[in-house]
C-alpha cells in the first residue's frame, strides 16, 4: 500500500513540478527525495517507487505525445541519437533514463530519512 501511495505521489509531484517551464528538468529529483523522506520504506522499495513513478510518468507522456504526432519527430530524433530511427527504442531510453534517476533520487531520500 505504502509503495502505491509513494508511486502515485512521486509521479504527481514530478508532473506538477514539470508544468513550470522555468524550473529545471530534473526538479523531480527533489520531489522524489521529499516523497521518499516523507513515506518511509525500505531502501529497495523506495528505489522501486521512484523508478516506477518517473518511468511510468515519462513513458506515458512520451507515448501520448508520440501517438498524437504519428511518430514524425521521434523517428527523426531516433536517427540523430542514434537509435536506428526506432521510436520504440527512443521511448524506452527516455523511460529508463527518467526511471533510473527517479529511483536514485528516492533511494537517496530513503537513506537520508534513515540517517536522521
Amino acid at each position: 500500500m505504502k509503495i502505491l501511495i509513494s508511486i502515485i505521489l512521486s509521479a504527481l509531484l514530478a508532473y506538477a513540478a514539470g508544468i513550470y517551464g522555468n524550473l529545471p528538468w530534473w526538479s523531480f529529483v527533489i520531489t522524489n527525495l521529499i516523497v521518499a523522506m516523507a513515506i518511509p520504506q525500505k531502501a529497495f522499495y523506495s528505489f522501486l517507487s521512484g523508478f516506477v513513478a518517473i518511468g511510468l510518468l515519462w513513458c506515458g507522456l512520451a507515448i501520448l505525445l508520440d501517438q498524437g504526432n504519428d511518430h514524425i519527430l521521434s523517428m527523426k530524433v531516433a536517427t540523430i541519437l542514434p537509435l536506428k530511427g526506432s521510436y520504440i527504442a527512443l521511448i524506452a531510453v527516455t523511460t529508463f533514463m527518467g526511471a533510473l534517476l527517479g529511483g536514485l533520487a528516492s533511494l537517496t531520500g530513503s537513506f537520508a530519512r534513515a540517517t536522521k
Partner: protein
Amino acid sequence: MRLLPLIASAILTTGLVFTLDTQLKIGNSKAPRLGYFLSPQHGFWKNAEKINTNFDATIIANELKGNVDVYVDDRLVPHIYADHDADAYFVQGYLHAKFRLWQMDFETRVASGRLSEIAGADKLPIDRFFRRLGMVYGAEQTEANINATNPLMKATLDAYTAGVNAYIKQLDPTDLPFEFKLMNYVPEDWTPKKTYLFLMFMSYDLTGRSANADLQLTNTRDFLGYDLFDKLYTNKQDSLDPIIPKGTDFAKPSIIPKKPSNSDSSYLHTTNALAINNVAMPEAPDKNNGSNNWAVSGSKTKSGRPILCSDPHLGLNLPSLWYEIQITTPTHSTYGASFPGSPAVIIGFNDSLAWGVTNAGRDVFDYYEIKFKDSTQNEYWYNGAWKSTTKRKEIIKVKDSTDVIEDIAMTNWGPTMFDAHYQNPQSNGRNLAVQWTAHSTSTGVETFYQLNRAKNYEDYLHAISLWTCPGQNFVLATKTGDIAIKQQGRFVARWERQGDFIMPGEDSSYAWQGIIPNDENPMIKNPARGFVSSANQPATDPTYPYYLGAASAFPLYRGISVNKHLTSMNQITAQDMQALQTDNYNVFAATARPAMMRYLQLDKLSNDAKRMVNEMTNWDLNNSVNSKGITVFKIIWDSVEQAVWGDELAGSTIPLTKPEAFVLLDQMNKDSNWVIADDIRTKDKIENFKDQVTLGVENATKKLSELEKENKLEWSLFKATRILHLTKMPVLSRLNLPIGGGVNIINATTENHGPSWRMIVHLTDEIEAYGLYPGGQSGNPGSPYYDSFVNTWAAGQYYRFLFLGKEKLKQNARTKWHLQFKAA
C-alpha cells in the same frame, strides 16, 4: 550505519543529474543535454506537434492600435486582416516568430558572424569571413540611415520587431523550437538591426560570389597570362538573347568611364600578383543563384489579361527561406512570399498588379590592393601620400573559449578583408580591401513596402527606384494591361574588365567613376513582342554603354529557352504557364549534342562507348526524372571540356576557375581548328576537336559504366536533389527527390539549388494565382506542415492561392483556424 549508502547514492544521483545536464561531445558536434532533451515535459517531445493541432488562439497585445483577425487556411497560410498598417506588420512579426523563430535567429547569426557563440570554435572561419567582409558594418550603415531619414520605415520595422518580441516574451521555455533544444541555447530579442543583417545576407548571397570569383579570376589570369585568359574567358557570347531585345537603342550615357592609361601593363597584363585563395571561407554563393521571371501581355493570353510568372532560384533549405502570407489593411491587400526576418511581401501581387524578381548578376563587388606603411595598419599609401585608416573592432564570442577580436583597417575603399592576420600562405602578405555597394546605406525594405501598395506602372517605377543592392530585374504586370521589366540597383559605371580582377588601390585611377543613374538602367515596357522576361542573362547586348561584368556571372541558355517558348506561345492560360515554369527542355544540349556529333569519330570508339553515344543520340532532350540520356550527355560534355582545356589549366598549385561551357560550344560551332583544342602536353602532335571529342567520349564511358553498375544512370538518381536543413543534418532534410531539370533548364533544379518559390499570377478581375515553395509553413521538424509542399513541388504541381476579402475568406471551405489579436 546508513551514512555511507546515503553519501554513495547522493553522489550517484547528483553525478547522473550533472552528466545528463551537460552537453557531451559526440564526434564533431555536441550532443544536446540528454536529460533535458529527452524529458517529456521540457525537451523535444514537446515539439512533437499534434497531427490535428487546433491553431485557434486569442492573443492580447499592448502594442496594437486595434484588433486584428488572422484566418489560417488548410496549408497553414495566414491571411491577416488589420485596420492599421503597423498592426499588420506586428502580426506578421508574431507569426514569423511563431512558425520560424529558430531559422530567423540562425540566419542572422550567420550573417553577423555569431555562430561560434553558440556552436564553438569550429565555426570561427565562417564568423571571421562575414565580420571581415563588413556584413555588420553594412547593416549598421542602413540602420543609421533609416533611423535618421525614414520615419515610415523605422515605424514599420519597429512594429515588426515588437511582434516578434511579443511572441518570444510569451514563449514558455518548454515550447522553444526544436533546434534551440538540440543545440542548447535560447533565442534573444529581435531588433531592426537583425532585419538589416538578414537583408545583408541576401546581398551577399546574390552579389557576394565576387568575393571568391574575383580571386579565382585573378589567379587564373596570372596562371595563363592575359592573352590566353581572354580567349578562354571571353565576354563575347554569340548566342546571347538579352533581357532587353537586341537592337534596342540606348540613351547617350551620362558617365563615360575612362580606362586608366596604365591598365594594360599594371592591371590586365600584370602577372606578378600572387592572389589570395584557399582562405577558409564559407561556401561561396551558388553560381546558379538566379531565377526566371516573365510577364505576357493580354495580346498573348486567352483571357486578354496579362499573366506574370516568377521563380527565384536559390539554395534549397528547410525551413524554407520563404513564408507565404496575405496582408490586408485599408491601404492595400497583398499576397505572396515573405522572408521570415523582414516585414512585407517580397515577391507577390496585390489587387492591382503583380511583381517578381530575378538576380541581375551585375558586378558590384571589387578588391583593391592596399599598401600599409607598417604592420600597425594605421596608414596606407593613397594618391601619393600616407593616409590614416580607422579601425573597426569586431569581437567574436566563442562558446567554451576566449573571444576572438578582428581589428579591421577601414580604408577609403572599404574594410580590409585580407591582410597579414587573415590569409593563406600563398597570399604573400597582400592586403585587399573590399568595395561593395552593399556597404552603402540602403532603404531596400521600402521598395517592398511600396510594391505591396503599388497601384500602377508609375508606383512600381517609384518603388523600385529606391532599390540599391542586390541588383534585380523587377518584372511587372498590371490589371490594366501593362507589362514591364527593369534592371534596378546601384550599378557601377565600369570600363571593360574593370573589377574582374584585383585592382591596384594605391591611387584613385582604378576607383569607381560613378553610379549609373536610375533612368539609364535597362528597362522595357509593353514591347511589341508581347512579353518581357529575364533569366539572369546579360541585360543588354554590347551596345549598352556600360560594362556589365565578367560573362561567367551570366548564364545564357535559360533565357534563350524562355524567350523561344514565349515567342511561339499564344492564347496562353495559367495552366500553360505551369507547364512552362516546370519545363525540362535542354536548349544547351540541343546545340551541343549535334556539335559534338559532328566531330565524333564513331569508328574509333569502343563498343561500350558506342552504346553510350547511342543512349545520348536517342535522348529526347528533356531533363526528365527517368531520363538516362541527359546523364550520359552531361558526363560526355564535361569530359570533352576537360579534354579541351584540362591541359591549359593543368599544373596550377592554386585552384583556378573553369571556362564557361558557352565558350567551347561557340568555338565548336565556328572554328573547327581552334588552337585551344590542341593538347599542349603532346609535343609531336596537334590535336583538334575531332580528337578531343572522341577522347572525351571514351573517357566519359569509364565513368558512365560505373554509374550504370551502381544503377545511377537515371537523371534523378544521379542528380539526387536534396533540400537540406540549415544545420545540414540529413534526417531533418529531404533527400533524393524525384525531380528533373537542372542547369540551363527552365526548371532549374540542381542538386541542392533551384526554384525556391514558384508563382503564377493571372491578372483577371478576381486574381487567379498559383504557386508554392519546396518546404512548408512550419519550421518545426516535428510538424506535419514542416515539409508539406515538397512532394507537390517535386511533381511540378501547384496550389491555387486563396486571395480573398475577409468575409469571403472566413466562409471559404479551406479556411480552418482563427487567430484573434486584441489590443489590450
